[in-house]
């Protein structure tokens, strides 16, 4: 419906003599290329933003002029930008609902109370409505902040800034120096049970400092901070502070400072912790400091800087680009886009410059996609960890985060009077949109693949092993030489064995002689001696075999490789010890490990495989499975595959060998193509199993089912 210049309710508004309530303060702000007026209600702590055209109107309200007079004046003064009566009506309504308006007629007490109730209810709902992010106001810190401000004030001076910069620089240098020490086993420390406890201890304290940072920055700018509380984010209590008074700050960088103060504080704390870390002896305190550096320096910044969620990064971004209220206005702009081009409503576009429009167009969809992603992953996480209650709470969270907006949109589509004449079109377009989306998920096949990893492995015939214990006497083939089957590679001897052969030989000679003498005298005794000879001969044969085995020969044609051929001579090797390898073109296989979840796909739906070596990540090879171990195992073929070794499989920390995994896996041997000549034995291999195409819905369904099977045993 098009807005008309005159409004049907003007008779109720026109004669009023309005003015702003006396306690509000007005600030003029410049945003990029336009001026805005920010009206601060010091009683409620809320702020409201008006365009100059609107403010012209508001500024004319002095309690003497009637609305009609003001409007006439605004029309003659603003000419082309003159507001319509309808806009004036909604402006006054907005002022009233913000408790800013005072008129010459007695306020409607009933309505005011009802509005207050609504406001309180909305606030309660905002606090407790979402189980995944509850807010509990705890404390009014304003007086505390006031009292401590004289001290803290120095932090916000040039000296403070220099101090901050110096500390952080020092910490950065220290990090550079101790980098290997710090990064070594970082993943281990993050996950270890002890460090989880430490995190739980350090986190709230850090966050408290973080919030104090915001609060002081607000106070420094002249605002008031009346609410500090606990937000229960996915069951983790996190302090929060209400710094909305900073919206009224005139200077942009002051506002940015309020947004950034939390992170700056934490970075400072992290820097101090870093310096201390280098000073103290290993122990609990050092672990604590390490955690502090990690949380305050890395996780917090990474978490807070993201502007797609309504945390510090968002406010900083919207202040820097000088688009206040970016999220809401972006959503508004999209609503208008849909209404205008989708449903054909001729609403006037929300006021925005070209620069703002491009921000609006990008921000809302990104934020929405990210929020939904977060919502789903958090819900899954909660549901998986706390079964019944978790599932309920996750369901509630999803309902509020996803169900409510969907319900509202559907309700708007079905009942909004403004869609009266276009409802069919609106519903058709919405259905088409949903249909395309659902169709894409359910019908359009997208590549289905799974990824796994393994190590380069050799076949058994490539191993050059000592067949028996002995001292290596000589390495005949040099490392890197081409060898053929039967070529002697390593010779070893075992003095004891030689002696033993000699003993056996002479014993056999003695026995033979004894046999010759007894043959005709004592037939019984001769038979026994014969048996003895046979026994000794068997022993001798075996000893000779063992001696022969000390000469190690190649069984295949290939290249002899021995990593330690120089050290071998004179070394005592045990039977089975690996002396070297004979590598031949077909010798390299990759032994890969596939988690249980993917095993069915790998076994039954394998279209092709891509193998990449970590040392040549740009080249991919086609491969095929040559052998598979039919049973699941909880052993990894190599430590390279555990998380500690750079792989993705979580090893059981109780296992001293670090080869036992928490979840069972399957092993496959893949043939490595000839081209992969530079595949170093034992190095990492990444495999992408291509399973053809399948719609997303089917893929998700499979994953969900597996998740439920494993997590809920249901």
């Amino acid at each position, binding site marked *: 419906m*098009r807005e*008309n*210049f*005159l409004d*049907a*309710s*003007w*008779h*109720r*508004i*026109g*004669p*009023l003599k309005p003015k702003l309530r006396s306690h509000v303060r007005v600030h003029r702000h410049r945003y990029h290329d336009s001026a805005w007026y920010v009206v601060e209600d010091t009683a409620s702590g809320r702020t409201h933003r008006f365009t100059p055209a609107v403010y012209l109107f508001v500024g004319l309200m002095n309690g003497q002029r009637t609305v*009609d007079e003001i409007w*006439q004046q605004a*029309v*003659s003064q*603003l*000419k*082309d*930008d*003159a*507001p*319509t009566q309808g806009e004036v*009506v*909604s402006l*006054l*309504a907005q002022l*009233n609902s913000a408790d800013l*308006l005072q*008129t*010459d*007629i*007695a*306020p*409607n007490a*009933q*309505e005011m109370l009802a*509005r207050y109730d609504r406001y309180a209810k909305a606030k309660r709902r905002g606090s407790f409505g979402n189980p995944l992010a509850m807010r509990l106001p705890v404390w009014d810190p304003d007086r505390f902040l006031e009292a401590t401000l004289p001290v803290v004030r120095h932090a916000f001076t040039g000296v403070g800034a220099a101090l901050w910069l110096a500390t952080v620089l020092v910490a950065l240098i220290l990090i550079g120096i101790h980098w290997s020490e710090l990064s070594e086993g970082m993943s281990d420390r993050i996950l270890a049970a002890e460090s989880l406890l430490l995190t739980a201890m350090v986190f709230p304290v850090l966050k408290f400092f973080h919030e104090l940072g915001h609060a002081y920055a607000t106070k420094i700018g002249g605002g008031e901070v009346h609410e500090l509380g606990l937000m229960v984010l996915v069951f983790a209590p996190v302090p929060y502070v209400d710094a909305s008074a900073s919206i009224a700050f005139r200077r942009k960088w002051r506002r940015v400072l309020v947004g950034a103060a939390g992170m700056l504080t934490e970075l400072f704390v992290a820097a101090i912790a870093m310096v201390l870390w280098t000073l103290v002896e290993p122990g609990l305190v050092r672990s604590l400091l390490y955690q502090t550096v990690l949380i305050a320096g890395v996780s917090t910044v990474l978490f807070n800087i993201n502007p797609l969620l309504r945390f510090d990064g968002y406010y900083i971004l919207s202040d820097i680009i000088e688009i206040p209220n970016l999220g809401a206005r972006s959503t508004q702009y999209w609503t208008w886009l849909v209404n205008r081009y989708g449903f054909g409503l*001729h609403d006037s576009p929300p006021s925005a410059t070209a620069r703002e429009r491009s921000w609006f167009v990008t921000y809302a969809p990104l934020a929405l996609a990210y929020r939904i992603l977060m919502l789903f992953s958090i819900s899954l996480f909660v549901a998986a960890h706390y079964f019944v209650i978790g599932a309920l709470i996750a369901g509630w969270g999803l309902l509020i985060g996803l169900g409510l907006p969907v319900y509202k949109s559907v309700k708007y589509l079905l009942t909004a*009077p403004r869609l*009266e*004449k276009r409802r069919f079109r609106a519903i058709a377009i919405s259905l088409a949109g949903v249909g395309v989306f659902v169709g894409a998920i359910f019908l359009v096949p997208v590549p289905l693949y799974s990824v796994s990893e393994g190590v380069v492995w050799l076949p058994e015939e490539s191993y050059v092993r000592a067949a028996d214990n002995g001292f290596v006497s000589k390495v005949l083939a040099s490392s890197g030489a081409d060898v053929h089957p039967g070529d002697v590679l390593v010779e070893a001897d075992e003095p004891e064995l030689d002696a033993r052969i000699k003993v056996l030989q002479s014993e056999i000679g003695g026995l033979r002689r004894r046999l010759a003498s007894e043959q005709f005298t004592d037939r019984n005794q001769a038979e026994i001696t014969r048996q003895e000879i046979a026994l000794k001969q068997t022993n001798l044969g075996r000893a000779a075999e063992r001696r022969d085995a000390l000469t190690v020969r190649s069984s295949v044609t290939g290249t002899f490789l021995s990593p330690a051929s120089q050290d071998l001579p004179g070394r005592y090797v045990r039977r089975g010890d690996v002396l070297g390898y004979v590598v031949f073109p077909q010798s390299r296989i990759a032994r890969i490990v596939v988690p249980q979840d993917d095993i069915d796909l790998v076994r039954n739906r394998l279209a092709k495989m891509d193998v990449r070596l970590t040392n040549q990540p740009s080249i991919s090879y086609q491969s095929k499975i040559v052998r598979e171990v039919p049973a699941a195992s909880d052993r990894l073929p190599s430590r390279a595959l555990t998380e500690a070794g750079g792989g993705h499989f979580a090893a059981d920390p109780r296992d001293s060998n670090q080869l036992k995994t928490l979840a069972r896996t399957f092993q496959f041997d893949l043939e490595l193509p000839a081209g992969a000549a530079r595949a170093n034995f034992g190095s990492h291999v990444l495999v992408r199993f291509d399973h053809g195409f399948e719609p997303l819905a089917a893929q998700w369904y499979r994953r969900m089912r597996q998740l439920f099977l494993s997590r809920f045993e249901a």
Partner: protein
Amino acid sequence: MARTADRDEAWRSRSPYAERGDVKIAPLDFALTRTFGGVLSRLENYAGKLARRVKLADACAASFTGLSDDELAAAARQLRGPLLRHGFRQDLVAQSFALVREVTFRQLGLRHHAVQLMGAWTMIDGRFAEMQTGEGKTLTALPAAITAALSGRPVHVITVNDYLAARDAEELGPIYRALGLTVGVIQHDDEPEQRRAAYACDVTYGVNKEIAFDYLRDGLKLGNRRSHASRMAGKLGGIDMPPLLLRGLNFAIVDEADSILIDEARTPLIIAGADDNPLPNAVFAQALGFAEKLKPKIDFLISGNAGHAELTAAGSASLKTLCQGLSGPWEARRAREELVNYGLAALHHYKIDQHYVVVDGKVEIIDEFTGRIAEGRSWQHGLHQLIETKEKCEITARHQTQTSITYQRFFRRYLHLCGMSGTISEVAGELRAVYGVSVVRIPTHRPSRRSSRGTRVFRTSEQKWAAVVESVRAGHREGRPTLIGTRAIETSELLSKLLDKAGIAHVVLNAHHDRDEAAIIAEAGRAGRVTVATNMAGRGTDIKLGPGVEVAGGLHVMLTEFHESARIDRQLIGRGGRQGQPGTYEVIAALDDELPSIFAPALTGLLERMLAGKEAPLPKALAHILQRSAQSRAQRLQYRIRQQTLRLQDQRDSMLAFARPD
């Protein structure tokens, strides 16, 4: 009871007189009540309870029969105190009812039937009574009105037209006076003084629109001093408080409750006055001049059939250059573009004889649905004036709303709302949801002897009218009176011509003849009489049968078209076979009637092909399906319009809470 009293007194803080505050109904409550309210009301077996109570009244009867007229008036006086103190206590109501019954018998020679007392008691309880047509609703309202008046409440009896209000007040006046009560009537032409006097009476008869407008006028007069308290304070401060017309919205008995509370509740009542800042007439001529200079497709686009003209960016710029140097509305972009947009619409979209006609130098709108002239309606936002300029008519003043109210809100403000109708149970759910009043079905006094002669739907109007004339002739021959209902004045006049041609003597009753209504109705029941009436004339009138007619079979009612709701059909049918008299009715309609072609176009098209070339009407079942689907679609549309009226008003009100209330 204490709670009721508190609630009843709460008005002092916000109103000058007794009325209920506005409540917003939660959408879910509304939807549930609307869906299940009707069923709930029916499950109560309220009528059974009422029957027992009426026995109480019967028991009291003996104590009054022996009294003289003066003693009856004294008895009424004695009842006032207890009724005021205890409210509508059963024994008091029973006594009052018995008293009214006795006085009515003495004055009019009629005694209230048990079902009429049941209906009255339903209303005392604040409910709607569904009573079959012809059960004597005028008399039914009487005990309720008198009991309420005796308890000190100003009573409004609300009827659908001035004629009925005047007639009822006049007929029942002696009874009120015999009981020491005064009766007033509001008529359309009354001056404020007369109105104030009428409202000062114990019982006031009037048309809904009149009373609601008087209420709005009171509101205008009150201005910002709305509450009783602030008026009192003003009086103390020596400020002259203008006298009000009404004495509060206390007790309303709504006759034909469904037409007033449902059918008429579509559009809000608006009091409009001349614009405070009128635009000079030259502006409209300028606007048309600019509009003519703009080029289609380049400067502006006209979207589809909605008649919205929209300026392009180029058009906006060229308009700006066109009106360079002009003052007034031409300075503000929105104002001038709106004017020119409407100017473009006036030039390119609105066409004479399609959207409007010019009668006696005045532009009159043609209703897009009915194709009839919508008298008194005008386009808003200057479009009307632009079209007047285009047609070179005299330019009327632009109207500006001064105050408005919806019927829903107005009637909800009554402390006690009740009423009756013959056709109300279909909308029981909605009535309960909107007004918080449930519906009670009252059994009939005597079993109905009305019978149907079937429904015939022809393919064309010609066939229909031929069948109508044929049927009239047959009834005429039998010596029975016939009442033919038509939907519009034009059709009643068309039928009149056809009957003339067929040589059948008849009378036409429509808006042009409403002065003679009483006389025409009085004659309509005589043997062989043929009356053609538009449905507006049908309601609330009792057609008394002439001698010998009852033996011949009573009144025959013919419907020549389906109405927008089955309720209106039934109201018309209810003119015949009243109070246990014999009567017949039939429906003769055509596929090219307005209702099927607008509200069931697909089905109508199908049936049309089926009937092509045939003289015979539709099979009965199909006719029924057609009626059902067209009427239910029309009803849904009506309901949506009412809902929207209600919702818009609620939205506006919560937005404008800081402003002067309407």
